[in-house]
């Protein structure tokens, strides 16, 4: 009798282990299923497209030829300006590899997902998505994608090193990495002839929200929370924010704090720590804080809500990457003054379009204010009274009258 119970419990334990393992897998395959579904959905369209198929196939073959020409081109060393041949047209395969957390992070990854969803509709591409389960498997994930895809997109600078290796091993596949230029700066040429780096002028967007903060503050003290110090990426946000705030009021006080230092990436997903930092800043008199810290930012909005309730004076937070007014919990929506927009969705969409049209360019592609790569949001209507001044600042940046620094303390 006793043994039977033990057996039952053992089975239960085994089952729960299996179920848990499936939980993870399930999730990955469900995204896989998505692409599977789109494949069948698109199947109809593709069949329709197959009426014009001869040409298309011809294109494909030509594309193969072009690749060879590319490698010849590479030896000439002027790949950077040269588009890599004719496009793949519609219905090619895209492998989208998310950063940790993947779809549903309400920020960076969701923005990339929005871009690929748009591309899926417009170019009928087949998308397979991977969300890495841990940081060590990035190279494997990219290689896995490269086996089937014509274009592999890596969301996040952490893919850069692995992408360089995998790109060299898969010369027929195009790679696009977000937030890394994929340039060999010593040689002044792309790291690989088939790898593009999509980078943003975050400092320009941050400048604009800095302007907004300086115009809206009543205490002449604003704060900045960075996710992780030490690699110069988040410092660009701080530099722009600082420059923007000081352009309105040179005497404004800016307190700044980073949650972690490289290589501790926990700072991007530690809302509890961001909340503590933000409360300290609000207590010391800052009334607007800009958080460039990924998921951690939601902790800042929470702190804003609690401080406002406790003291009766309204304090604000400024969001980052996506329009956080739309993504935060409704309870803290009224504390989102504005958000610095980093249009990862546009970058993903445009690079897919480039591959479709054959205008893919290796090396750095910069998305700045002028090209609509960065900007600010107005959802909530809290800054409607000052949009004129912010837009004026934006015009100054676009015209080149104002140059935004990329390192803080300028």
């Amino acid at each position, binding site marked *: 009798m006793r043994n039977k119970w033990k057996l039952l419990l053992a089975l239960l334990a085994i089952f729960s282990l299996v179920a848990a393992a499936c939980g993870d897998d399930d*999730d990955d395959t469900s995204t896989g299923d998505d692409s599977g579904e789109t494949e069948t959905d698109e199947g109809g369209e593709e069949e329709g497209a197959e009426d014009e198929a001869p040409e298309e196939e011809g294109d494909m073959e030509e594309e193969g030829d072009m690749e060879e020409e590319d490698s010849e081109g590479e030896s000439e060393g002027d790949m950077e300006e040269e588009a890599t041949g004719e496009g793949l047209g519609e219905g090619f395969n895209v492998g989208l590899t998310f950063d940790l957390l993947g779809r549903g992070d309400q920020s960076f990854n969701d923005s990339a997902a929005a871009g690929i969803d748009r591309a899926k509709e417009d170019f009928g591409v087949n998308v397979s998505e991977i969300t890495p389960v841990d940081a060590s498997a990035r190279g494997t994930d990219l290689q896995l994608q490269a086996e089937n895809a014509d274009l592999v997109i890596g969301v996040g600078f952490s893919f850069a090193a692995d992408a360089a290796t995998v790109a060299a091993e898969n010369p027929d596949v195009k790679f696009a990495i977000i937030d890394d230029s994929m340039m060999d700066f010593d040689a002044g040429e792309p790291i690989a002839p088939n790898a593009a780096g999509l980078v943003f002028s975050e400092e320009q967007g941050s400048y604009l929200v800095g302007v907004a903060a300086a115009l809206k503050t009543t205490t002449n003290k604003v704060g900045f929370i960075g996710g992780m110090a030490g690699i110069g990426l988040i410092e660009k946000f701080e530099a722009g924010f600082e420059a923007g705030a000081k352009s309105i009021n040179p005497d404004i006080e800016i*307190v700044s704090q980073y949650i972690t230092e490289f290589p501790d990436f926990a700072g991007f997903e530690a809302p509890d720590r961001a909340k503590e930092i933000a409360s300290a800043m609000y207590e010391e008199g800052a009334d607007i804080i800009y958080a460039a810290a990924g998921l951690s930012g939601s902790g800042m909005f929470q702190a804003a809500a609690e401080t406002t309730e406790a003291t009766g004076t309204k304090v604000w937070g400024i969001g980052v990457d996506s329009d956080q007014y739309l993504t935060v919990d409704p309870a803290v929506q009224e504390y989102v003054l504005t958000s610095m927009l980093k249009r990862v969705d546009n970058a993903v969409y445009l690079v897919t379009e480039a591959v479709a049209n054959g205008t893919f360019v290796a090396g750095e592609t910069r998305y700045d204010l002028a090209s609509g790569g960065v900007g600010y949001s107005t959802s909530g209507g809290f800054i409607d009274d000052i949009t004129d001044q912010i837009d004026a600042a934006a015009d100054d940046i676009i015209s080149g009258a104002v140059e935004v620094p990329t390192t803080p303390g300028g």
Partner: protein
Amino acid sequence: MKALEALNRMPAWARYMIYALIGILVLTVVESFESGDVSRLTADTASRAMLKWSVPILLAGLGGLYSERAGVVNIGLEGMMILGTWFGAWGALEWGPTAGIIIGMAGGAIGGLIHAIATVGFGVDHIISGVAINIMAPGATTFLSSEVFGNRTQSPNVPGVGQFTMPVLAGGDIFGLETPDILGSIADQEIFYLSDIANFSRGLMSEMSLFTVMALALVPITAWAVWRTRFGLRLRIAGEAPYAGESLGVDIIKRKYQGVIISGALAGLAGASISMELADFYQEGQTQGRGFIGLAALIFGNWKPQGILAAALLFGYPFGVSLRDLDGSSTHALLLVVALGLAAVAVWAWTRNAKSDVILAGSFSLGMFVWYLLSDTAPDWLPNTMPYVIVLLVLVFAAQRLRMPAADGLVYRKGGS
């Protein structure tokens, strides 16, 4: 020397009180060396942050105590905490904060039960089972999260638990009646040291979350339950000499199950405190290794509740202070505190004629002191590494004094020996 002997004869609570007063004195003195007019090291915000960030570590450590006192090594604390973060948030969203606390504990207890079945029922190696739970728990919560919240990484905002401020001493309400804030008024006098003590203690008594109150209450409760009750005696027998206990008719298997399940429940509570109190929502990976730090606190605290409390506060303090340290001065001052602490260790080793320890601690202390003098701000990574450094130091200098339960980690088979 006589003073030290007198200190050793004192009851434990008085000894710890004296350590705390010495600690605040050191902080007050160090603080006066720092430029800047804000007294951040002994401020009520500092002690409040310390307490707040120690709570998950303390609860996890206490959880580990119940399991290891019953002879089962619980490296799965981290996984049980992760279960607690999800179940706590889910319960709070569905049925309110109180339910969140209970369901969070239940979630952790499920993890404990699995660990108990594996290690006690089947005699699986404790480490292997614990690691399996640490791998399984995040998978399970990710799956549950995507099924229930429709978002695999994050839950909506969770309603918070209430706060408590001690009446009379820190100005809390009694049934809506305002009471004086005695400590606050002493703190405002700005008397050297006395005001620092008042302000620091005020931070420990005001705006405490329900989790903090529960965690602090669990320290004496655990000390009483494990050392002063029949249940506790049998629990400890299971961890010290299970076969001797068995020969006296103690149901060792049952005690081990109880210990590990309580352990899981407390780890679940620790997880719930993170998702419900510190972050206000569930998020994938938000325990950030605090289960392991709780395990370190258990070792540092010599498998005793008051030791775990001291360790948790010691780990929470630099962490909380550095987060609130906007100009880098407090973290910098902590370098001097560490240097002084190491110097004290060197002196202590000297009295015991442990020459190599004196040299080791002395040179570390000197290094820290030089670092303090040569720099204006300390790096941000320093406070994050402090728990590990402190544990390493304790293991180096006091390992002989640590004593784990004799049968901890050994597989027990009924009727064996």
